[in-house]
């Protein structure tokens, strides 16, 4: 395995762990598509950041995108709570509205500038090994993305392990959590803040489709394999890591897009879990039904 392969698989694994850990909580809250919503909702943030700064430089774009990512999750909760619509409808309304706002801003103010998520924000995982962090003295510290995602992962692990009980209770049983004095709103906003910052950092490193796929696929796979949240977190992280390694080799074999290949492996993992899961799988269910059918 050469060094490029190592960095790409490591980046994939870091994104996989970050996204699948958060994805578990999102799936339990029936908000799995929040990642996709954020990927669209950041557009007005990018445009506004450009209009204020006049530059398409990475950090400017990241700040604009992160602000809009947080705003998007806040609006989702606001519509969900105050207008009393279901979470999926609230997600749908919010991100389409924000995306539309971005398109209007582009066509009114910046029609002559090439400006959209694809060309100023979304990174490409295949190019991760090229984007190195060099110190002033020229010391090579490895890809910049690995450091950023590694930092995000440390913060996330701290967040989840320190506040596991609060996150667990407010996701599973909000009524009980409220009864014992936990603020469901506060924990919602903290979780969503973590989601939007993670997704935006990951978009910048590896592109949108991979982030959305990793946020839904591995947690859904793990959900089929266990009923225990701790095991689910662990399994989905493992599923994500396997997908990023297998996806890398699939892309190498096909000479195709790495993000596409990893997402395809995630789909295959889910199908395997769906068929072979000991508790929820197609085969085990048939086995349980068989004696009844025979008898």
């Amino acid at each position, binding site marked *: 395995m050469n060094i490029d392969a190592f960095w790409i698989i490591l980046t994939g694994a870091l994104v996989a762990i970050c996204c699948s850990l958060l994805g578990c909580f999102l799936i339990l809250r029936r908000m799995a598509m929040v990642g996709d919503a954020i990927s669209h909702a950041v557009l007005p943030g990018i445009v506004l950041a450009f209009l204020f700064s006049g530059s398409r430089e990475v950090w400017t774009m990241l700040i604009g995108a992160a602000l809009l990512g947080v705003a998007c999750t806040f609006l989702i909760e606001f519509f969900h709570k105050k207008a009393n619509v279901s979470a999926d409808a609230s997600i749908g309304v919010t991100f389409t509205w924000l995306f539309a706002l971005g398109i209007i801003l582009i066509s009114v103010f*910046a029609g002559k500038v090439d400006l959209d998520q694809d060309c*100023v924000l979304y*990174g490409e995982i295949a190019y991760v090994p090229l984007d*190195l962090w060099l110190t002033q003295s020229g010391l090579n510290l490895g890809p910049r993305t690995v450091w950023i995602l590694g930092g995000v992962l440390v913060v996330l692990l701290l967040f989840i392990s320190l506040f596991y009980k609060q996150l667990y209770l407010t996701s599973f049983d909000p009524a009980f959590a409220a009864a014992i004095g936990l603020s469901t709103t506060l924990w919602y906003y903290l979780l969503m803040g973590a989601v939007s910052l993670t997704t935006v950092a990951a978009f910048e490193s590896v592109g949108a489709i991979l982030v959305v796929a990793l946020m839904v696929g591995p947690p859904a796979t793990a959900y089929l394999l266990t009923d225990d949240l701790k095991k689910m977190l662990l399994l989905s992280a493992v599923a994500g890591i396997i997908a990023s390694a297998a996806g890398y*080799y699939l892309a*190498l*074999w096909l000479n195709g897009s790495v993000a596409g290949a990893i997402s395809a492996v995630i789909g295959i993992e889910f199908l395997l879990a769906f068929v072979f899961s000991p508790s929820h799988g197609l085969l085990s269910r048939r086995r349980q039904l068989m004696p009844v059918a025979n008898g």
Partner: protein
Amino acid sequence: MKLALKRRFTCSFFLLLLLAAACNPQDTPGALAHQQGKLYIVTTTGILADAVTNVVGDRAVVTALMGPGVDPHLYKAALGDLQTLREADVILYNGLHLEGKMGEVLQKLARQKVVWAAAEGLPENLLRRTPEFQDSHDPHIWFDVSLWSRVVEHVSRKLQQQDPQNGAYYQQNTQRYRAQLDSLHQWTKEQIASIPAQQRILITAHDAFGYFGSAYQIQVRGLQGISTVSEFGLQDVSSLVNFIVDRKVKAVFVESSVSQKAIEAVLEGCRQKGHAVKLGGTLYSDALGDSQGPAGTYAGMVQVNVGKIVKALR
């Protein structure tokens, strides 16, 4: 039962890994070039590869990452591209945000490898930009043949420094090719001037022809902005329709790398107002045509475009 399944699971996983290992590339164009002691030059677009090929002839190997008909704004990298970039001795990209995020990555790569942006060869005052924004240059510099000739000169000078052994040969090729480009520039000027002045209006799907318009005195209107993602507005369509009807424009054009749908709405609008405007054909904008066809080279592409424009508007 469970055990057998698990075994099948692991077996297929290892099979997948084996397959991947078996298909490692060995004789890449880069490795071959190095065996022959030649420079391996990798460009982003086919248009750049064509410029470099005209300078280096057969004394270096040139590869473009993006094939014919690919929109550089929307290009998705394959894993093999990383290998190609790793092997390259020289990497050439257009710059001015044509390649989007990829341009940024290449700009950073310049700290470790020889990476040049073609647009660096042009002074800032020759570049088109919207007055409101500093960082908003129009990247489609190849539509003005005289500008492109300067880019070729810039790239050639860099190549001569990089490969001094073949410097004289490169210089000779460059002079010959630039003479060709000069006559192409004159020819294009004459061709466009042969269209009566009031009919000299070029309407396309997206704003790629700005340099063409200012170099050859033809008014350019695009339905969309430079970004191919921004949707066209209803008002854009209706104001463009009014413009076409008022100025009695004979034909509008579509582009090889942008969808036709947008411009069809305009055609329909004109028809409803009783003005018969026809489709002038497909222009090559952000990518060359098929390498075997007439638009497979830069000069061929310009000739095909100008031929279509003149035929439809005269």
